[in-house]
C-alpha cells in the first residue's frame, strides 16, 4: 500500500513537471504570403534562426505556414515577427501566438487586431 502511494505521488510530480516544462514556451503560428518555391523559405528560416533560444522551427511550404516555439520569458511580440518576415522579403498574412499563460494574440494582414483572450 505504501509503495503504491509512493508511486502515485511520483507519477503526479512527473506529470506536474512535464506540464510546467510545456508552459515555458510561447507557440507561434505565422502564415506568410509570397513563398512560391521551397528555395524562398530558406530566407524566412534564416531570419528567424537569428533569434536566440528559438526552437522547433517548421515551415510548411504548401500552406506557407511557419511555426516555432519561443521562451515566454522573452515575450516576443507579433510586431517583431512581422518585421522579420518583412526582412526576409515576404508578407505576413496572419500570425498567432499562444502564450504559455494561455493568452492568445493575433495579427492579421499587417494590422493588429488587438484581440486577446484567455483560452
Amino acid at each position, binding site marked *: 500500500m505504501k509503495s503504491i502511494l509512493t508511486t502515485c505521488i511520483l507519477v503526479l510530480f512527473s506529470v506536474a513537471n512535464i506540464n510546467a516544462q510545456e508552459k515555458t514556451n510561447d507557440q507561434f503560428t505565422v502564415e506568410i504570403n509570397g513563398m512560391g*518555391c*521551397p528555395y*524562398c523559405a530558406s*530566407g524566412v528560416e*534564416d*531570419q528567424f534562426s537569428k533569434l536566440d533560444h528559438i526552437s522547433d522551427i517548421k515551415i510548411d*511550404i504548401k500552406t506557407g505556414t511557419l511555426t516555432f516555439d519561443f521562451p515566454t520569458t522573452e515575450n516576443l511580440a507579433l510586431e517583431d515577427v512581422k518585421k522579420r518576415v518583412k526582412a526576409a*522579403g515576404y508578407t505576413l498574412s496572419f500570425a498567432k501566438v499562444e502564450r504559455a499563460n494561455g493568452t492568445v494574440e493575433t495579427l492579421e494582414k499587417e494590422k493588429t487586431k488587438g484581440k486577446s483572450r484567455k483560452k
Partner: protein
Amino acid sequence: MKNSCWLFAILFMVFSINQNFAQGPPITGDSPIMIGGGRILLRNITEIRSTDRGTFVWAPLMVHYLPTSNSVVAVHLPLVHYNFDSEFSDLGNGTSFGDLQIMGKYQFYRKDGMGKTLRMVVKTLQNLPTGKELGIEGMSTGHYESYLGTVLGYETLEYGISTEFGYNFSPNGSNDNLKLELGFGLPLLEPTYPVNQLNLYFEYENQFYTENSGYRLLFAQGIQYAVDQLTLDAAVQISLVQDLLPEQKRNYSIFIGGRYVF
C-alpha cells in the same frame, strides 16, 4: 520551325504533368526572387563555349550580397581560358583574368499572395575592361560595357515564369544589343522544406544587335539539384537562330556550376 514545334510540345507536356509543383532559381537567366536581407550567395557557373573561332571557358567566382531584402550588390571575378583556332586568329591559347563585372539589383515591385508572388527588379551590370582584348563576348573583351534591364518573375506553387528585358551599351557600339529572356523552371520532385529539389529548366535568350542589325536566339536546357543551401546547376545552350557576323556566331555552350547561400 520544326525544332520550335517540338520544344513547345515538350513544354506543354511537362507543364501538364507538373501542375502542382514549384521550382528554384534559373540557371542561365536571372530571377527577381531575393533570399532575405543580410545574406551572401557564392556562385560559380562555368561556361564552356564552342565557336568556329575556337573554344573558350569562363569560370567566375560570383559573390552576391543582399544588404536588404529588396536589393543585391554583386561582383563577378572571372578566369578565362581561350583556345583560338589558328585558322581564324593568331591569339593562340592561354588563361587570363576576364572582364570583371559589378552587378546591382533593386526590387521595386512585389505583390505576394498565398503560395505565389509577382516581383519586378531593375538590374544593372557593369562590365569592366580588366580582361584581354580577345573579343569574346561576355567573357573577355577588354572594353567597358554597361547593361540596364528589368527582370519580371511570377512564381506560384503550380508554375513559374521569369523574363528579362534590357539593353547593353558598349562604347564603340559593336556589342550594343537589346536582350529579351524567357525562362520556365519545372520541378521533378514534390516541393518540401528543407529544400530537396530536382528541376528542369527551359530558357530562351533573344539578342538584337543594333549596330549590324543582327539577331540571335539561344535555347538552354538545364537541370538543377538543390538540397538545403547548396544548388548544383548544369545546362546545354544551343543557337536556334543566328543572323550575325561570323565572329559573333556560337556553336553551343555547356554550363556547369553551383551556388551556396550563407
